[in-house]
């Protein structure tokens, strides 16, 4: 076991982790960050997506010890009930969540897209989302929500 220290949603944290313990499991079990979901543990569904130095990464495949010194952002750091990110408001308004299990990963990967490309085309949005699976919504309302959020953010909303 070793101690890993990193920044989580802007705050310094530390956790004692095993050599192959994933960042996903460390976030959930050691740091009680539950928006990060255990959907497959195989890197295939995207429901564990977090931002590592701004890049969307499937945290189930990243060893927690590799997070040493890095900046990790989860949904909790993207927005809160008191201060929603436009993506969260757009997902809510566009009925882009049904069971909600894929939602954190979807919003996180969409945030990474909008951070680097404020005016994505529909194709660019689809490409960014293509690694995140959803079984309930059929994706269309999620695509609409990201388009909606981009519009609001470009309007300054």
């Amino acid at each position: 076991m070793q101690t890993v220290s990193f920044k989580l949603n802007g705050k310094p944290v530390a956790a004692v982790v095993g050599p192959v313990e994933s960042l996903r499991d460390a976030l959930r079990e050691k740091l009680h960050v539950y928006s990060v979901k255990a959907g497959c543990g195989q890197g295939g569904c995207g429901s564990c997506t977090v931002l590592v130095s701004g890049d969307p990464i499937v945290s189930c495949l990243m060893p927690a010890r590799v997070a040493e010194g890095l900046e990790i952002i989860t949904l909790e750091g993207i927005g809160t009930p008191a201060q929603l990110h436009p993506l969260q408001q757009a997902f809510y308004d566009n009925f882009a969540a049904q069971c909600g299990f894929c939602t954190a990963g979807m919003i996180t990967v969409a945030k990474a897209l909008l951070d680097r490309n404020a005016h994505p085309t529909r194709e660019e949005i689809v490409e960014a989302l293509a690694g995140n699976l959803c079984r309930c919504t059929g994706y269309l309302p999620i695509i609409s929500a990201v388009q909606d959020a981009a519009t609001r953010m470009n309007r300054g909303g």
Partner: protein
Amino acid sequence: MAKVLGRGIAALHYPTGMNLGGDPTQALIYAQPTGGFVVKLASTDLGQGLKTVVGQIAAEALSVPLDSVIVDTGDTDNAPHCMGTFASRATHRAGNAVIMAANEAKEALLQVAAQELEASPHDLVMADGEIWVRGSPARKTTVFDVALAAHFKYGKTISGRGMFLKPKSPIDPDTGACDPDSTEAHVTTVANVEVDTETGEVKVLKLSSAYEVGRQVNPKMLEGQIVGGAVMGTGIALMESCFPSYPALEPHPASFNDYVMMTAADVPQIESVVLEYPSVDGPYGVKGVGEMTANSPLPAIVNAIYDAVGVWITELPVTPERLLRALEAQEPK
């Protein structure tokens, strides 16, 4: 070698309720002292939005604002029996149970209001949390005041019990004669596909559907079922298999690498219209739709493939391999 377009249609029905019935659901409703209402159910929300539609149905039946209704589900220590969420039964059964409970609670409320307003309960009108005497709108009160009075002045409960059970139908073992369901919803779906005769890939370009659902409780959420089901059905038609070499027991996918599913990049254009012909016994005429939205893509796509390339692919999923083998074996069209 070409990309060929095709169009196919499919017209389906889907039954509401556990087959043969015998699947009850109960609901309890009570008012709190300041006029909020709690709906107790042991039903489950799978993401389709049952908690939301139950709240809407309760608020409608109680004639109170939507946000004065609390929906509490599920805890078997705190709510009566519900058979479960499956067989497209939840809105139908839970909705009916909630309406029945709401009617009893509302009647109790109006009895107390009648005493407060010194009128007969039959002369009262209720809407949006307010109660007044028909023809004399100045003689009015609110659910807030009536609930307080019921609790602390009259000692009356404002609560209701609801239950819906379609009695279990017998089934004749020789003829199959039975009463299998409460009602049927219907859909006609048109699929537009593009078949690549070189790779065998089928791309669904568009799915257009007309759904008849009895009554929509929440149109955006119904659309959620239509779109979600369309995508799931398309994946089942074209990609998904637990045993890709069925009936061989191997290979047997264990991950998303081997079990192929629809992603955001595969989604066709999806459009729909919704018709409402209230059912005989659904809550406000509702018919269940949660399952059926994943059914029509299967035959619509296969029929569209025939339209495009003249082969019937009658084994699912329609993988590129199956399509190419069928094209190879094809008689001239």
